[in-house]
């Protein structure tokens, strides 16, 4: 392998780095050896598989939209304001990142479940969340939101407030500054944050299982379908796992592409 290396990086770092990369990639490659290739198409096009894949894509897109709607203001508040307990709020918002998803599911039940704190209120308005696709989207949004907030907040801090200050002195109202300056400046980060959220939503399993249930076409997303197929049809489980890996690779590839687009946040001076 031809690696151009800055002379300040020791050779052993590269050796360990290669070990690390192989560590991540090898199991995924190994999985492809377990795929029942002759029946691959049949396995992944069974009605239950297709239903699970479509449901996963649908709910993940909805969750991503919810993440953007909720996450952009959240990131702005964390990056652009100062208030008492801000560090605590940030830590709490990022909590789903480190919590086992099952705990997320239990927490969501306590909040939005039929007997949860808000469940009665929703029931009153004729909205039932339990066992609905909405519950899946809620679970996915819950676990995916920190990715977007994290990505946006650091990008907002990096971009600084100077362009925004200039825009304000030019007579732009705060909403105009947000729309015409702040958002365009952090757009690459918004995009990659959204893609990451989508990927996280796509892989969501524990919280969905605990909070939403598992019913074909309604709440059984691809990870749940894989988990279930493992019981009786390991071949189908492996095939579907590969599909999920491919979608993830596609998504990550997309993020990398957007991040290599010439950075918009480059200084105006040259």
């Amino acid at each position, binding site marked *: 392998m031809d690696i151009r290396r800055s002379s300040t990086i020791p050779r052993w770092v590269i050796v360990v780095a290669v070990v690390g990369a192989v560590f991540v990639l090898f199991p995924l490659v190994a999985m492809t050896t377990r795929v029942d290739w002759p029946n691959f198409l049949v396995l992944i096009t069974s009605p239950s598989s297709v239903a699970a894949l479509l449901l996963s894509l649908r709910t993940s897109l909805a969750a991503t939209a919810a993440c953007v709607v909720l996450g952009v203001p959240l990131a702005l508040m964390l990056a652009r304001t100062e208030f008492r307990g801000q560090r605590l709020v940030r830590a709490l918002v990022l909590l789903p990142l480190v919590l086992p998803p099952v705990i997320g599911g239990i927490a969501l039940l306590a909040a939005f479940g039929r007997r949860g704190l808000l469940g009665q209120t929703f029931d009153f308005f004729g909205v039932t969340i339990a066992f609905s696709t909405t519950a899946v989207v809620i679970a996915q949004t819950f676990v995916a939101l920190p990715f977007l907030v994290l990505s946006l907040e650091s990008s907002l801090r990096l971009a600084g407030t*100077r*362009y925004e*200050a*200039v*825009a*304000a*002195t*030019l*007579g*732009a*109202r*705060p909403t*105009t*500054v947000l729309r*015409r*300056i702040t958002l*365009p*400046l952090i*757009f690459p980060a918004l995009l990659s944050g959204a893609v990451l959220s989508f990927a996280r939503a796509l892989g969501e399993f524990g919280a969905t299982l605990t909070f939403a249930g598992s019913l074909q076409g309604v709440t059984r997303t691809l990870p749940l379908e894989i988990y279930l197929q493992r019981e009786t049809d390991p071949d189908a489980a492996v095939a579907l796992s590969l599909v999920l890996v491919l979608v993830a690779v596609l998504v990550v590839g997309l993020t990398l592409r957007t991040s290599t687009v010439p950075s*918009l*946040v*480059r*200084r*105006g*001076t*040259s």
Partner: protein
Amino acid sequence: MSLAIQARVAERGFDVSLEVAEGETLAILGPNGAGKSTLLDIVAGLLRPDAGRGEWAGTPLFDIGGRHSLWLPPHRRGISLLAQEPLLFPHLSALDNVAFGPRSAGHSKDAARATARTWLAEVEAADLESSRPGTLSGGQAQRVAVARALAASPKLLLLDEPLSALDVTVASTLRRMLRRVLATRTAIVVTHEVLDALTFADRVVVMNGGAIIEQGPTREVLERPRHPFTAELAGLNLLTGTGSAAGLVTSGGLTIVGESVGAGVKAAAAVRPSAIAVHAVPPDADNVVRVTVSDLEPRGDSIRVRTESSAAGGSLHADVSPGRAAALDLAPGAELYFAFAASEVSIYPR
């Protein structure tokens, strides 16, 4: 007075009271950390002082610490800020950068662009209209930034060291352009260049340590500085003391011969470094000061000799040619005599 500001920021030790007349260009001079940018930020509405009042032509900009707190956000002040860096919005073309102000004021896209073209032409940057900021040179970008600030038709223009990031030749062209556009405007220019103050300003304010230490008409302040820092900026030697019949007596007991401002009056004497002759032995002159060399500093085709003098009560400096410096065998610690004629000294009350 059109702009009147009085503000305090405890954390930065900032306490300033300032007025600017309509149509006047005020220069603010001062070293780094003097509080110049803090002042601009308060006027622009980007920084909230702990206490103070500000108004423009009788309309309040802010009033903090009183009974009714008032704070006009920056976008409602009509005050544009031009910073050291152009800070052109990187995602917009030069034209749309300039059109940003008019757009924000509610003009249509076409109308705003038409206004923007006028201003780009005004700063001789019409050919740059479709360029992206990333492709512009420093001077071009600052030109566009000037157009952008002016296109917002501000009542007051704030310039924060607008030329300091540019190289000398680019800065001088831009300085001429700024002189033209600032001639009829109300503006505050923060700078550490005396040349900028002389070029743009009707009046200067000198700040140090968060406070105004001196102010007045530009020429007067720069020719007759009252504060050592101002003298340093203006490139003058400043000797302070008390007026006498001969001229001035310093606290160290040294008499400076020059025109008299009356005995007993607190007074200052200013001498240009180039007017001082440097000798190894005491020469015959109106004024002779014994000094000890503290530092030598190359300045283009001359050498600045920085010295300390206990009799003068502070530091003095003179400019000599490299040949003369060699002949005198100058080195820190050397004892010398500074000599200058009475006619080269300007003595004035302090």
